[in-house]
């Protein structure tokens, strides 16, 4: 991302924002730049401060300290109704006493747009979100997905600089959520508005976003593209939150010829290639995604060529969970209390899928697939 030569302009800037509630710091010195036209997601568990941050941007909450700039203008002292951004609320917050058209046109009426133009612009957005023919319905006559579309149109019709989405899909069931993700992406590509999305669902963040910021306890832990966040999480928390269940704390005990010897807290030693980005003494652990680990039956001799940095650990299969498209296995590594989680996809054409509980195996992964952690 940082390598691209012409970056779009920054359209939302958060500078050193702090927000405290009695007993908790909800937002703790956060700095952030969001560029024009991207879908940016705040990702984190509930209570991490992501919604508070969004509400500060919207003006629904006042920060104790720091600045919010929309399109280069500080909006700290502007009330929500004067800010050039609009929010899609988690529970959609449609006005129950107004029709679909009335809801979508709400903000335009406040801006004293002429009636005829309101009608035209509302119609355009009704078409954009595929709600043609439902203009005169009331919210209670709509399904959950339709209500969310109305909420989206209601905000988009104002052509805000930034569209804020506060867990817009959380209230929908799984199938609908998938559908709406696709819709959201399509709509964003069509209108080109910057989307700032808040979610606790890592799958949603990965599939929807151009960039993701992972938050915990009011602090920004890591910002990056979905690839970066998933494949190279920098801290134990990010790694586990993104589903890397094999996380090892420890430290580097030796370094030579571009190879590091890493000793885990449980005493296992592995060799890993040196990292360009991270100094040796800052490494506090590593993680491996379960889908990157191979299991080989112990008595079947290793068929594949191993490089020096390949990790091979003998162990016993403890549990096999058959999940259809893949199986999840837990493997207890010999002489340690490490339990590895390994995913075996059905497409893998080895005998491994038939592995059963109690089987002796060798867990193997390439050193290149190990991700170093710094916290």
């Amino acid at each position, binding site marked *: 991302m940082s390598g691209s030569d012409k970056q779009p302009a920054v359209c939302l800037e958060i500078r050193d924002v702090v927000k405290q509630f009695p007993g908790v710091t909800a937002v703790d010195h956060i700095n952030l730049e969001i560029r024009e036209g991207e879908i940016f997601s705040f990702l984190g568990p509930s209570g991490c401060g992501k919604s508070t941050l969004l509400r500060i941007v919207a003006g629904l909450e006042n920060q104790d300290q720091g600045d919010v700039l929309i399109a280069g203008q500080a909006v700290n002292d502007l009330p929500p109704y004067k800010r050039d951004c609009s*929010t899609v609320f988690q529970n959609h917050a449609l006005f129950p006493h107004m029709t679909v058209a009335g809801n979508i046109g709400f903000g335009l009426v406040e801006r004293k747009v002429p009636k005829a133009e309101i009608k035209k612009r509302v119609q355009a957005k009704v078409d954009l979100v595929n709600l043609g023919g439902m203009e005169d319905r009331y919210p209670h006559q709509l399904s959950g997905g339709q209500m969310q579309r109305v909420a989206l149109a209601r905000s988009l019709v104002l052509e805000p600089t930034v569209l804020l989405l506060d867990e817009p899909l959380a209230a929908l069931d799984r199938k609908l959520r998938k559908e709406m993700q696709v819709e959201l992406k399509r709509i964003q590509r069509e209108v080109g508005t910057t989307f700032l999305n808040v979610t606790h669902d890592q799958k949603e963040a990965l599939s929807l976003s151009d960039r993701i910021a992972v938050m915990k306890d009011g602090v920004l832990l890591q910002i990056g593209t979905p690839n970066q966040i998933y494949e190279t999480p920098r801290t134990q928390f990010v790694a586990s939150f993104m589903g890397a269940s094999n996380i090892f704390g420890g430290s580097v005990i030796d370094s030579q010829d571009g190879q590091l010897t890493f000793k885990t807290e449980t005493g296992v030693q592995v060799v890993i290639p040196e990292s360009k980005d991270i100094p040796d003494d800052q490494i506090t652990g590593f993680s491996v995604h379960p889908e990157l680990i191979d299991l080989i039956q112990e008595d079947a001799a290793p068929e594949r060529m191993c490089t020096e940095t390949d990790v091979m650990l003998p162990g016993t299969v403890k549990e096999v969970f058959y999940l259809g498209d893949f199986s999840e296995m837990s493997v207890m590594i010999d002489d340690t209390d490490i339990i590895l989680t390994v995913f075996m996809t059905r497409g893998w054409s080895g005998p491994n899928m038939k592995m059963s509980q109690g089987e002796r195996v060798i867990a193997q992964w390439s050193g290149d697939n190990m991700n170093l952690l710094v916290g």
Partner: protein
Amino acid sequence: MKKKKIAPKILWVLSVLTLIFLWAPVILIMVYSFSNNKYGSSWEGFTTKWYVKLITNDQVRDALIRSLIIAGITVVVSTLIGTITAYGLYKFNFKGKQFLRTSILLPIVFPSVVTGSALLVFFTRLVHIPLGYPSIIIAHIVFCSPLAVFIILGRMQRFDWSWEEAALDLGATPFRTFIRVTGPQLLPAIMASAMLIFPWSFDDFVITYFVAGVGSTTLPIYVFSQLRFGATPVINTIGTLFVTITMLGLVLVHFIQKTGKSST
């Protein structure tokens, strides 16, 4: 099997008896209000002459008008105070809020004789507010606004405040937000509280009796003054109208709340 069927039946009988206990006296005076008997205490053939007498009775008419004026003003002022108070109590947290809430309850939970006598002494010995309309209306506002506060507060607690945020977010000023969103959404509760305060004020006897002074006879005070004569046909007609109007009012409240519910 038999046991199961007999329990509801026993309960039904008990329930019907209880209803009869609650309703028989009321139905009786409604029936007697159409009876020819001049003491209004037995049936001697149908007549509507007591209603004619009621309309032509100057005392009753004066008392009725007085009660309507008092209740009308009380409803408007109490509902207004109730609405902004409920909003303030709901929206803001501050030290002493719990104490304020409890204090607001006092006029409702104290016996009417205590409120009535305290206000009487206050009006006559301390601030010299003339007994009559001013004292009665103030007293009614004192015990009716708490009712409005808690009815509207109850509604606010079930209210989805993200509507308000959404309106602000979409560019409506706080004032416009209240006009276009919050107000319309709270309207059913405000209407309901007005509908319930009206009978509270209109029917109140005890507190009014204390602070009314001489010559400010409201309808309940008139009824009370007639009580020592025992049953009278005119009071039967007043009672009949009271109960009928209460029933109509309750039906109306029911429908207001129903429309309020269906739109949320």
